[in-house]
């Protein structure tokens, strides 16, 4: 595929994601114009890009969407759930069109074409048929919007500029902020079309403090910046200053309100506004006349129920303003920060990155062998040099791995849409809460975790959360809550899917498990173990099979997928409170810091992050499989017995205390050999079913060492211990 096309498709997909995110926020009641602007910009970018790569099918379709968004922006149509849904469907269709483009198809097949037409017509329905000739070129879009403004008539002014009204604080010059500097800075955002300096506040000479500022300005300002950006110009002089900013095409009443709020006389201000081009004389006269008529009428019906006065509403709005402004400012900051970020990003092919990682892996191995030889040679200078070298290799390894780290946020954000659509489909109110979206993990892991996560989230929505009526009856909030959390925990990343639904029915699961022969009736299981039975193959307790889940395939697939990533999944659940699925994944799949241990002549590697401490195994605990670790019971496994290596026990054995999946265990070995950079080499398919071994690596000497699967060993130790205890308990 042509490179420009593939770049376009990738970018278009990103823009679509952004659009979707914006639309969802709008649906949830975000009225920030910047959100709508963001959505519009995204659509516009897609349209522009598709024009460049000559994908007319996408260009035409996006044009319709852009039109609708433009109308929204001009307040000609209002936001409704139906409209948002329609636009979201259009986003889906655009994705489908992009798929076609990816397969180098430049024309939509009839079915897709039909779907697109239907969607476009549906969207046009919202526009009130005003855009019959919508398939025109992009250049016509601005012209359309101007025309519509004219037809608005009396309500809005013709002024296409911002109007900034500022009265500087008395103190600003004393604080070193000259209004001139502030206004000059304003020029960086646009053009001052007209400025009027207001000196009415100047007191009599005797009272006048020459170092105070008494000036104010009425500025007609042409700019594409948004309100927050303009306001930020005045940040430094904000305290004590009076600042009003009216957007382009503000209502006449807004201007009247502005006049009323300023200290100067009405007529004089009116004149200034007319002179500066903010208002036309007719607009001003008309507005003032109406205001007077309104107050006269209000005076007549004195004592009657007070009609809501426009002024009051506007004053009310002004009270709200600071928060909106605050939000807009933060939003704006985020956007500009993101933009700055983007500028520092480069796109490279994932293959190149993988190749780099491979090479670094080889470098690590070669470094280790050089190190070994240097030590054998006994030349101090050589040892020193190689140790510097290996430190550098370590840094290279870390930064190379860092390159592959991506934030999980993108994966999480996909679920916003999934949750929204599913909620509508199954008629439940569901709220999705995402935390830790900036947690980083290996790209290859991120790619593979999407499907299992999707399954868990769908399960939570369908099985976990009760129907709204049931929830209300139980005294829970009507809207169900699904949480996605991610965080780092001792060398692994933890992803949680939490719901506040009904929880897992333990008795039912147990019964079903017995029915299916997964457990025997007499088997004593902890609550935790029962809950985790749902990951067994062919297990489903749902009474009815729905479209979403409940067919009994899935949870075992989820577990298998996660295990393939060297991760684990488990569930904690409390009936009527909710369930928490916890996925633990290793941070990276390629290179780790290892801890080398030996049994007889074999070497094993334990991931260093999981090692808590090492100690000597005391003779007293020699015939048991647990020891007393400062008052804590620590179960352990003996590698010698587990892997049946060696014959004679050495006089001294060591215990490596490891922590995995929230529990501690001991691994008994002969010797501790210290830290070792481990390049993970996967085991061949033949060894896939090997328990307790996660992979292999090559030592500096060229020998192979096996990497221990600490997770499995730890649970092995724990269950072995529990079993012994259970047997002992049964005897009593």
């Amino acid at each position, binding site marked *: 595929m042509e490179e420009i096309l593939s770049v376009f498709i990738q970018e278009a997909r990103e823009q679509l994601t952004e659009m979707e995110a914006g639309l969802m926020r709008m649906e949830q009641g975000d009225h920030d114009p910047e959100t709508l602007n963001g959505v519009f910009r995204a659509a516009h970018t897609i349209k522009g890009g598709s024009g460049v790569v000559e994908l007319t099918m996408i260009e035409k379709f996006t044009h319709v969407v852009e039109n609708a968004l433009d109308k929204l922006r001009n307040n000609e149509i209002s936001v409704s759930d139906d409209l948002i849904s329609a636009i979201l469907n259009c986003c889906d269709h655009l994705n489908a069109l992009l798929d076609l483009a990816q397969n180098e198809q430049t024309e939509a097949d009839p079915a897709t074409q039909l779907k697109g037409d239907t969607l476009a017509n549906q969207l046009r329905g919202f526009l009130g048929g005003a855009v019959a000739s919508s398939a025109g070129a992009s250049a016509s879009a601005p012209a359309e919007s101007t025309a519509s403004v004219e037809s608005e008539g009396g309500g809005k002014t013709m002024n296409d500029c911002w109007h900034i009204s500022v009265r500087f604080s008395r103190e600003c010059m004393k604080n070193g902020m*000259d209004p001139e500097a502030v206004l000059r800075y304003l020029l960086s955002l646009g053009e001052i079309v007209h400025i009027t300096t207001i000196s009415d506040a100047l007191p009599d000479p005797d009272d006048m403090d*020459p170092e105070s500022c008494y000036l104010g300005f009425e500025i007609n300002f042409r700019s594409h910046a948004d309100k927050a950006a303009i306001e930020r110009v005045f940040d430094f002089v904000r305290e004590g200053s009076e600042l009003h900013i009216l957007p382009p095409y503000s209502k006449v009443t807004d201007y009247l309100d502005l006049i009323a709020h300023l200290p100067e006389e009405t007529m004089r201000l009116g004149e200034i506004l007319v002179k500066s081009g903010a208002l036309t004389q007719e607009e001003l006269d008309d507005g003032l006349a109406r205001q007077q008529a309104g107050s006269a009428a209000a005076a007549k019906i004195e004592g009657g129920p007070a009609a809501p006065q426009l002024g009051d509403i506007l004053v009310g709005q002004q009270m709200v303003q600071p928060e909106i402004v605050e939000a807009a400012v933060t939003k704006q900051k985020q956007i500009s920060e993101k933009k700055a970020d983007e500028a520092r990003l480069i796109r490279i092919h994932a293959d190149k990155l993988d190749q780099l990682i491979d090479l670094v892996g080889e470098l690590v191995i070669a470094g280790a062998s050089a190190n070994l030889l240097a030590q054998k040679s006994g030349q101090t200078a050589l040892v020193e040099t190689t140790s510097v070298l290996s430190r550098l290799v370590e840094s290279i390894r870390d930064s190379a791995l860092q390159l592959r780290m991506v934030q999980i946020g993108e994966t999480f954000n996909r679920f916003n849409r999934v949750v929204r659509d599913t909620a509508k489909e199954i008629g439940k109110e569901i709220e999705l809460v995402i935390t830790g979206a900036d947690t980083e993990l290996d790209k290859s892991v991120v790619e593979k975790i999407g499907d299992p996560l999707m399954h868990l989230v769908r399960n939570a929505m369908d099985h976990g959360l009760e129907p709204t009526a049931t929830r209300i009856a139980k005294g829970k909030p009507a809207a169900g809550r699904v949480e996605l959390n991610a965080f780092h925990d001792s060398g692994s990343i933890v992803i949680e899917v939490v719901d506040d639904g009904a929880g897992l029915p333990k008795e039912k699961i147990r019964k079903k498990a017995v029915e299916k022969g997964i457990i025997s009736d007499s088997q004593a299981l902890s609550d935790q173990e029962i809950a985790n039975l749902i990951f067994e193959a062919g297990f489903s307790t749902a009474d009815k099979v729905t479209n979403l889940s409940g067919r009994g395939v899935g949870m075992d697939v989820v577990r298998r997928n996660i295990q393939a990533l060297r991760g684990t999944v488990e569930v904690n659940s409390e009936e009527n409170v909710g369930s928490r699925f916890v996925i633990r994944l290793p941070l990276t799949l390629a290179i780790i810091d290892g801890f080398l241990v030996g049994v007889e002549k074999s070497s094993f590697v334990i991931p260093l992050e999981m090692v808590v401490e090492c100690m000597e195994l005391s003779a007293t605990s020699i015939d048991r499989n647990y020891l007393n670790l400062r008052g804590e019971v620590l179960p352990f496994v003996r590698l010698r017995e587990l892997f049946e290596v060696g014959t004679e026990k050495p006089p001294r054995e060591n215990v490596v205390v490891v922590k995995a999946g929230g529990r501690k265990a001991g691994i008994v070995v002969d010797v501790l050999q210290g830290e070792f950079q481990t390049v993970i080499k996967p085991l061949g398919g033949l060894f896939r079913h090997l328990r307790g071994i996660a992979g292999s690596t090559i030592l500096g000497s060229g020998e192979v060492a096996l990497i221990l699967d600490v997770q499995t060993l730890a649970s092995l130790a724990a269950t072995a211990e529990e079993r012994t205890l259970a047997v002992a308990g049964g005897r009593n």
Partner: protein
Amino acid sequence: MSKAESKTAGKAQVSRVAIADDLTIYHAAALKDQLMGHVKQHPAIELDLSAVADIDTSGIQLLMLAKRECQKQGKILSIVAHSPSVHELMDFYNIAGFFGDPLVIPASAA
């Protein structure tokens, strides 16, 4: 401030005041006294600002104050010469109309 000098030129009542100092906040207090002093003493003042190297908002403010005071008392204040920086700032603030003087830039500075 001592550089600013007052001399009677041509017609007896019109006093010409040349200001050579910066019209900035650092001199604002002294400037105010000086300007107000002139306003009090003379019925008509011609301000020569051609030697003003630097002017800021406080300077503009003082000039506006002086102008307004003169108007109130029926006196005349006209600025007969602007230095480039004065011209520029007056332009920026769009207040040439307020003073009603032709903006004259000395040939040397233009």
